[in-house]
Structures are given as structure tokens and as C-alpha cells.
């Protein structure tokens, strides 16, 4: 009998917690004592993936550092919805930087702590994809290159949502944004442009690079905890759906993250010193259409005359991720 190979649903690794699990087997988020670093009352939209991802990540970092954590935060949705003066949702030391210099501000905090001999205090920097892949990219690359003792977390919702859904270098091909309208021969965002920052980070050969999504809490907590156990420059890129910017239902935030992983659109992996050391395998593979269809930013690909050619190109991109990272199989 192969009972040892079978996971019972109660003790499986998919739910947040479970009454039948020992406390150490539950996720940090299942505990009533989680730090709730990003508290209630923030002004993020209904079903905001970034608010969820930020609490998941920062709570895990707080737990890993016994609460000795300082965050620097780039301008963007996360900063705007969490700290309308004079209120704050952050239950931790937190500083708002400019749009483009969060990595440098975090570097400065880390240097200050070092100078003061406060080796127990750790530093995270966080920002959206705009502040990370576009505007703050120079500071970020510098932080990597100097191997500063900072964990940089990018919450990727694939456009400038705060200012009205403009394209960023993380916007996927064919997606509609305010600046890539679905008109002309190639509607939506162009193919063949944009940046893959996790891979650029790997090219710096920093100690740790990882991707994660809000669909897999345990994987996300594992990666943040692991990153906080290391020193030097570390980078985690978290996929966070945006109901408003993507034209998706607010209750589909986690489902869309799951479909992005299961279709191969967003590969989840970790890498040390530039080499991939682990990937999250696809459990129930789905075609990319299943991921694209619930989002109005891709609506122009469907309808009465589906844009079969573009869909095929998007599927090919996902298939390439699956091949490249070996996302299928045991």
C-alpha cells in the first residue's frame, strides 16, 4: 500500500493551516499571532493582490527577524494606499522613498545599522514593477552589484496601476493598458519588449533570487524566510494580480495567480548565485486561454473572432517557460 506517498487533504501542503496539523506544520499566516504588518483600514481596492502579497511577505520577514525589520518603500500603489498622511497601516518602521531610489535608501539604512553596530536589525526594500523594473532599475542594479545586505521585494502587477494603468517594462505582450490600446494591426502591448528582472538579478550572481505568487502561500513564506536567513543582496519577485488594472473580478485574485503558474505564464523558481536551484512544478496544467479569458485586458483576443495567432504566440511563450525551467513532471 502506498499510503506513505499519499497526502491526506488535511495534512497536505495546500491550505493555509488545518486543525489536524501540528502548529509547526502550519503556515505563518494561519497563526492568530501573525504580525499583520500591513493592517486593516488600508485603501487598496477590493481583492488587491499587492496588499495580500505584501502582508504575506513582510509578516514572514518579521517572523524571521523577531520583528527587527525596517522597510523602505518606493512610490506606488502600495505606498499610496497604506499611508495617506497622517495614517499608516504599517505596524513596523517604514519609510517612503522616491519612486526610483528605494534600493539606494535601503542600502543607506543597512549601512547606518552597520555603523551603529545594530547587526540584528535587517532591511527590506519594496516596490511595484514600475518602481523596480523601470524607474528604480539603476539603483537596484547598483544594490545588487555592491551586494548590499538588503532583501528587495518587487510586487509585480504588470503596469503602473497607481497612475492609471500605463504600460511598464513588466507588462505582458498583447495586454491592454492606457498606453497600449487594443487598436491597429498588433493590438495591446508589443511582443519582444520588456524586461525579465528575476533573470537580470540572476545575471548579477547575487546570493538569492526567487519568484513567488499569492497563490502559493507556503512557497512564498519559505522563500522570504530563506532569504532572511542569508546576507547580501537578495531579490524576490512576487506575482500579484490587480483586479482594477487587469479588468478581473475581485474574487479571482488568487485564482488568476494559480492559473498563471499552472499555464506556465509565470514560472516560479529560486536561484542561488545565478543558478536555478528549485522550481515549483505544475500540478494541473491548463492552456493559457484559461488564464487570459477572465481578464478584460485580454478581451480583444477573444469574442466572435478570436485572435488565434496572438493566442498561439502567448501559448508559445508559456511553453518556452515550461521547457526552460522544467515545470512539468515530478
Amino acid at each position: 500500500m502506498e499510503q506513505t506517498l499519499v497526502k491526506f487533504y488535511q495534512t497536505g501542503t495546500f491550505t493555509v493551516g488545518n486543525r489536524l496539523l501540528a502548529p509547526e506544520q502550519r503556515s505563518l499566516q494561519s497563526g492568530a499571532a501573525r504580525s499583520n504588518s500591513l493592517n486593516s483600514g488600508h485603501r487598496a481596492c477590493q481583492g488587491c493582490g499587492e496588499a495580500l502579497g505584501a502582508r504575506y511577505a513582510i509578516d514572514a520577514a518579521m517572523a524571521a527577524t523577531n520583528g527587527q525589520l525596517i522597510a523602505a518603500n518606493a512610490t506606488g500603489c502600495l505606498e499610496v494606499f497604506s499611508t495617506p498622511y497622517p495614517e499608516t497601516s504599517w505596524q513596523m518602521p517604514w519609510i517612503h522613498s522616491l519612486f526610483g531610489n528605494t534600493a539606494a535608501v535601503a542600502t543607506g539604512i543597512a549601512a547606518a545599522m552597520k555603523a551603529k553596530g545594530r547587526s540584528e536589525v535587517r532591511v527590506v526594500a519594496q516596490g511595484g514593477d514600475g518602481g523596480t523594473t523601470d524607474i528604480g532599475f539603476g539603483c537596484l542594479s547598483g544594490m545588487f552589484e555592491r551586494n548590499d545586505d538588503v532583501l528587495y521585494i518587487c510586487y509585480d502587477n504588470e503596469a503602473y496601476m497607481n497612475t492609471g494603468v500605463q504600460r511598464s517594462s513588466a507588462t505582458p505582450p498583447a495586454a491592454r493598458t492606457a498606453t497600449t490600446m487594443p487598436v491597429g494591426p498588433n493590438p495591446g502591448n508589443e511582443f519582444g519588449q520588456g524586461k525579465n528582472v528575476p533573470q537580470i538579478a540572476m545575471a548579477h550572481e547575487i546570493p538569492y533570487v526567487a519568484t513567488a505568487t499569492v497563490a502559493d502561500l507556503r512557497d512564498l513564506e519559505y522563500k522570504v524566510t530563506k532569504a532572511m536567513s542569508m546576507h547580501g543582496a537578495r531579490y524576490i519577485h512576487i506575482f500579484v494580480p490587480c483586479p482594477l488594472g487587469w479588468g478581473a473580478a475581485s474574487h479571482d485574485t488568487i485564482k488568476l495567480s494559480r492559473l498563471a503558474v499552472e499555464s506556465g505564464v509565470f514560472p516560479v523558481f529560486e536561484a542561488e548565485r545565478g543558478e536555478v536551484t528549485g522550481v515549483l512544478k505544475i500540478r494541473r496544467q491548463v492552456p493559457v486561454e484559461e488564464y487570459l479569458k477572465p481578464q478584460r485586458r485580454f478581451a480583444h483576443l477573444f469574442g466572435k473572432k478570436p485572435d488565434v495567432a496572438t493566442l498561439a504566440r502567448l501559448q508559445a511563450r508559456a511553453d518556452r517557460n515550461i521547457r526552460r525551467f522544467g515545470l512539468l513532471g515530478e
Partner: protein
Amino acid sequence: MKMQKPFAITLDVGSSLANHTGSWRTERPVYLSRKPPCNHQCPAGENIQGWLFHAESGNYQEAWRTLVEDNPFPAIMGRVCYHTCEGACNRGQLDSAVGINSVEHFLGDEAIKQAWQLPKPVASSGKKVMVVGAGPSGLSAAYHLARLGHAVTVIEAGPLPGGMMRFGIPQYRLPRQVLDAEVQRIVDLGVRIEYNTKVSNVLESKLAGGYDAVFLAVGAHIAKRAYIPAGDSAKVLDAVSVLRSMEGEDKPLLGRRVVVYGGGNTAIDMARTAKRLGATESIIVYRRNRDKMPAHDFEVEEALQEGVMIKWLSTIKQAGESSITVEKMALDDKGFPQPTGEFETLEADSVVLALGQDVDLSLIEGVPGMAVQDGVVQVNGHMMTGHDGIFAGGDMVPAERNVTVAIGHGKKAARNIDAWLRGSAYVPAPKSEVAGFDTLNTWYYSDAPKTVRPMLDIIRRQSTFEEVQGGLDESNALFEARRCLSCGNCFECDNCYGVCPDNAVIKLGPGKGFEFNYDYCKGCGICVSECPCGSIKMVPEDI
């Protein structure tokens, strides 16, 4: 005024808790209990998901206690129930249904092994109830009535309790010590059973005993006959009598070649019993085909495995001393068998008829108000006959005839009798919506195959009356219980608490579940989408 604040700060720092984002909401999530499809399906009205919940954590006694709230015969059920619950199980659409019946079997056996006792009755009501018939329906009613505080006397025509559970179901399906143990527990509650007493007139017996109410559950024990031209020396028997005589000292002599006539579960039981009595050939003759056969598929399958043969689309035209003549049939457009005029001879030492059973209605003859139709007693929605204060259930009323249905009748009748005795009418709890497969988020349940109960070796099964369906051991039972998806009922997985982007779910601690903090809940609905078991739903706000 001199500022006491840090550089460039002019206001006190405040928390965002001042901002009640709950005001944005147009819909609110609410926790609810939906009815699991297994519970919905169970003819005995068991709270299956409820007892599996306790079994999942290894608390078998609590599981058993939850089970016997509805059905006092878990060990019997684990052996003879046709477990239609498993056909309704949502897990069947994921990998395969939860082995509910095998866990019930385990719990029933564990209770007998550990000598767990049924809960004591509430304070005496001072009312006396007569139950006629100590079969599954009568004993179930007696159990529930006793727990409700009534003094119950069961009048049984036969020498032993159990009814068709003893005189109809063969020992290889239900060992008698299991039956005896579960009946004894009911007797231990204070239920009196009078054996070898036949009620010839229900009104006279009611008056003589000073009973306030009566529950009739005499079953259907008269074998239906069919006219078959037979020679003087032909041996034609009926299955009810043969199976009944299996309980006595002298086992029936059927010969080496036995033909059973009929297509129900009794025909199957009969053919398998004949095989165990030493018949080299045990052949079922049935006038229609397998699709139309009323017997349950798994029983047909087990019979075939044991070497029972089935002659489909055939009727017996004539029976002689050592052979019978059968006529081939063909199904017409409406699915009815029609004769073809083609005949065939089969060797047979005896023919056993298993063509269904009729109810012995002599005890209600002349009772005013009593309505009989198609040979069964008519009852209303409260299980009461046309005569005030006389209720009926089991095989003698219009319903599917099996042990589980009968037990369900007993429970339903007991609740109605209790209400009637107290001068009111029983009002069942309002029906909650059924937790269908589409209310689940199955991503969170990993796949796991059903544990297969060890089957006795085929050869051993053919020659003895030892139990055919083995039981699960503890680790298997726990495994099986944990495959339950907990449809429609929170199992405290913490998903809602974890996935809320607004920290608007309050965790109340083990066994207490969760609560929404509507001050901050924005109504995004992620908790509903990510609840594995469909125990949260969105309802519109009044705006």
C-alpha cells in the same frame, strides 16, 4: 506655538484602523453550513460528514456517538447498507468516493469491542408505546422512542430479534454476533422485547396493554408465488423460507443443481447461499437483462465471482424432478420481456422462487380508517396510518425495501410519535441547500485513492459462511475518514483567515471557527472563492 513633533511632522501619527473600509462593501461574506450530498442521500438521515469530522481527528468514540444520534446500528450498516451515500459523494468526481461504509463498519466494530453504551434516555414521559415487529424499523423506532423518554415494548412474532436482518440476510453478509450486540445495546436502554408473540388484532393488543401509541413494522415475509406447472416429484421452494431455515439446526437440502428464479437482491443472496450449501451449480433465471435487474451491481459482481451463473431473458415454463424447461424472452420496445417460443432444458434438483414478498396484513383487518393499497399500508407525511395514533413503517409501507430505509422510517416515526404524544406535530428542521461539487474549490484537496477493503479469498468465501467484506484497521480507517472533503461545512483549514487582503477575518480558536470583521471587510469575495469546502457565501448588502 512650539512644535513638539519631529522635523517636518505637523500631525500625530494615526493608524489606518480609523478608516472603516467596510463601508465600501456591496456584498458581504457569511459563513454557512450546507448539506453534504452524503447526508442528503442517506435514507436513515445520518450526519455522515459530522461523524467523519470526529473520525478524522482519531476521536472514534465521538464519531460513533454522533452516528448513533440517528442510527443505532453502525456495525450492521457497515455490512449490509447499500451505501448510496458513496454514489452521491463529491469526492467521486475528484478521484473516487470516500469509503463511508467501511469507516462506519470500523466504528461499529470498535464500539462493540470497546463496549460503548448508548446515551441514557431523558426523563420519563409516562407514555407507553407498542412497537410491532423487532426488525430494523421497529428496533430503530424503539431506540429513538426510548431515548425520548417513552416506555417501549416491542412485540415480536419470531423467537429472535432482527427481522429480515436475521431471517433474510445470510450470515456471510451479517454475522449474528454483530446483530446480537447491537440489539442488546437497545435492550440495555430499557426497551422490552416480547418474543414468540403474534399480534392478531392491533386494537385489542393496544387496549390490553394500555398503550398510548403504536408503531407497526411487521415487514414483508410472505413469499410471492408464481404458477409453474410442476410434476409431483419436483422440488419448488421459496427463498424467504429457505433463508429463514438457515437460522435453524437443520439446513435446507437443495441438491447439487439449484435454480433460483428472480432478479432481486434476495435472488442473489439465495444463489450465493446455495453455493455455500454445496451446490455445484447455482443458476439464477431472470426474465430480463442485467440493465433491468433490480439487484445491486456489486452483489451481482460478487455472486458471479463466486461462480453463480445467471440465465438472462428466461422464464421457467415447467419444473420436473431433475430438470426444468425455460423459455427465452426478448425485450420489446418498452423494455418488457415477451416470449419467443424457444425452449431449453436445464438440469435442476430444486427450484427456489425469489419473486418478492407480500405483507401479512391480518393484524389490521377491520381497523377503522386504515387504508391498504397494492398490498401495503398507506401512511401520511407523519408516518401515521389512517387510524389516529397508529403509525407504520418499513417494508409494510410504500417505499424501497431495504434495511437503511427501514431504519430511517423508524427514526422518522419515533419523532412523529413523540410529537403526537405531546399533543403537537413534528416539524422537521428547514432543509439547507445541498453542497454540490461546484461549491467546492478542489485545488486544495490532493488526490488520494480509496482504501479497498480486504476481500476474503474467493475459494474460502464459496464454501463457508464467514463474512465476505472484511473491515478496515485503524490506520486505514483514519486514512479513509481523512479523504472526506467536508462538503459545505468548515473544517478549520484557515484559508479564509489567510487569504483576506484586509485582515478582516477573526480566528476564534480551535472548534470555534471564524468570524468576519465587517468594519474592514471590503466584500472582495476571495474568501468565498478560496474556501475549499463551500462554507462561505456572498449575500447582497441592504443599500
